[in-house]
């Protein structure tokens, strides 16, 4: 690819993979420093961006490092020095960053990082699930999940403005499902270079380690007398970021026509049965919702776009009148009680005088496909669950909340799709 296709460009509508769209967003953001180490399926993002650097399309300082621990450390240093700094990673590489993720957030550095979600071994697996980023969900980073390549592009541009907002100043990771989005080709509408440049603005750090006239210490010791207060500050910034994320999503909508909030509700107005999902699965579920709605079923979908900070209040409003809810987790908590999203949704809905009976499906580990048929079977299960819950609420609610189901795993009785097995597929597909 020559640079002729990347001269200052206007809006384009073209086919791209998620990785390509992400690299394109990075080119338009034009960060001062990028440090990265390649790991599948993130490699394609950084490989493309490195080519922009070597072709002179961007003037970014590119730091090839020897591990992801070093990549995030270099970015931490660059950000403390006042640079707009980015890296990208995936799966085991993300896990290797775990220690420094806390440091970046603790120093309140507005680093932005695309993550290609990938399973954490073993056995060895390079495909997409959410076990990597879920493992660092409490590191103090804002986490935004993308449904497709378009959102991976849109979210990354918004992430810069969210991270650098004076009342946030937190690192932001923007995830996309490994291979499913990173390597899947879709139509993506990109903004003009100038529009992105104006939207993210010029980064003017409040302070810089390179400013020798105003010396300072970053990373001082903070023991029993101050550490707790600093972590409380971090928690408050995270809570406050909800409003900023919504504002930035609104501003991005005015620019692009594509509006974003903490959550997205799809045909939830009068929904009795709902699925809650993150990432690319939300797109698959929308197809099923449309089909079931066409058959007169009151079903809906809630997509959690922002997983950190967790949109608890939004979910309480959205799900208050739902009869049965299935939370889809693309990672397992191995606690015998389902995945991490399930636990958080239950906590968010705690104490509602009337709320849904909630159950959990762990699915798609290691890149296992989730099909429209599987999602349809979940809605069928939910219908049965709602009927049973209306008869014996306490027993059914407890059973549903304590028993995770495994969707799409080979069971000994040959059942592949519906874990509850309450209803069979109607065979119309």
């Amino acid at each position, binding site marked *: 690819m020559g640079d002729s296709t990347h001269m200052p460009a206007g809006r384009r509508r073209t086919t791209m993979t998620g990785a390509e769209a992400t690299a394109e967003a990075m080119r338009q953001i034009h960060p001062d420093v990028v440090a990265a180490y390649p790991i599948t399926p993130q490699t394609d993002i950084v490989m493309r961006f490195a080519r922009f650097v070597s072709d002179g399309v961007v003037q970014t300082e590119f730091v090839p490092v020897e591990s992801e621990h070093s990549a995030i450390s270099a970015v931490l240093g660059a950000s403390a020095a006042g640079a707009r700094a980015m890296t990208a990673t995936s799966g085991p590489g993300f896990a290797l960053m775990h220690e420094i993720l806390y440091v970046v957030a603790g120093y309140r550095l507005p680093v932005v990082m695309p993550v290609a979600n990938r399973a954490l071994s073993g056995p060895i697996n390079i495909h997409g699930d959410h076990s990597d980023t879920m493992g660092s969900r409490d590191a103090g980073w804002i986490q935004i999940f993308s449904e497709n390549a378009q959102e991976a592009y849109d979210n990354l541009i918004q992430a810069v403005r969210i991270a650098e907002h004076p009342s946030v100043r937190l690192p932001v990771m923007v995830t996309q499902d490994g291979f499913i989005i990173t390597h899947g080709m879709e139509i993506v509408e990109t903004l003009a270079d100038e529009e992105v440049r104006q939207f993210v603005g010029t980064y003017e750090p409040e302070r810089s380690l390179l400013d020798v006239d105003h010396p300072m210490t970053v990373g001082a010791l903070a023991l029993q*007398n*101050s*550490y707790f207060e600093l972590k409380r500050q971090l928690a408050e910034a995270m809570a406050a970021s909800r409003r900023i994320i919504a504002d930035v999503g609104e501003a991005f909508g005015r620019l692009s026509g594509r509006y974003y909030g903490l959550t997205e509700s799809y045909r939830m107005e009068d929904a009795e049965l709902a699925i809650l999902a993150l990432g690319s699965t939300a797109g698959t579920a929308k197809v099923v919702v449309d089909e079931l709605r066409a058959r007169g079923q009151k079903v809906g979908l809630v997509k959690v776009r922002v997983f950190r900070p967790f949109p608890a209040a939004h979910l309480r409003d959205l799900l208050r009148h739902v009869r049965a809810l299935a939370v889809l987790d693309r990672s397992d908590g191995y606690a015998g009680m389902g995945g991490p999203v399930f636990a958080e949704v239950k906590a968010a809905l705690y104490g509602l005088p009337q709320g849904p009976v909630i159950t959990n499906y762990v699915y798609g580990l290691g890149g296992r496909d989730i099909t429209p048929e599987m999602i349809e079977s979940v809605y069928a299960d939910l219908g049965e669950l709602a009927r049973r819950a209306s008869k014996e609420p306490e027993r059914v609610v407890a059973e549903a909340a304590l028993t995770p189901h495994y969707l799409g795993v080979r069971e000994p009785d040959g059942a592949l799709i519906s874990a509850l097995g309450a209803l069979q597929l109607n065979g119309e597909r």
Partner: protein
Amino acid sequence: MSVVKKTMPAEKEASVTLPWTRMAEGGLVPRGGTAASVRTGAWRTGQMPVLDLEACIHCLRCWIWCPDSAVLLDGEKVSGIDYDHCKGCGICAQVCPPKVHAIQMVAEEVEG
């Protein structure tokens, strides 16, 4: 060698009383030279270096090796030890040439 007594200076930490709303974001220390004001010599337990300037040949090995920059210089000559920042690790005594033997680690008592 007599036992030297010292009093431990309290570490100056104004931030210790600040509520979370008023602390510098991210634990940043927004001024320079703060390492000098934190008396890490208060961490010293048991042993302290004592310098014999009569024996010292000013080779500066102790100055090079001290991890806390606690060996004081006057021009190019060793002039003393900054006990406010010496943690008593003993590296200076180890690297002092054996024939010179100008630094000895001695027992130290803490008052109060």
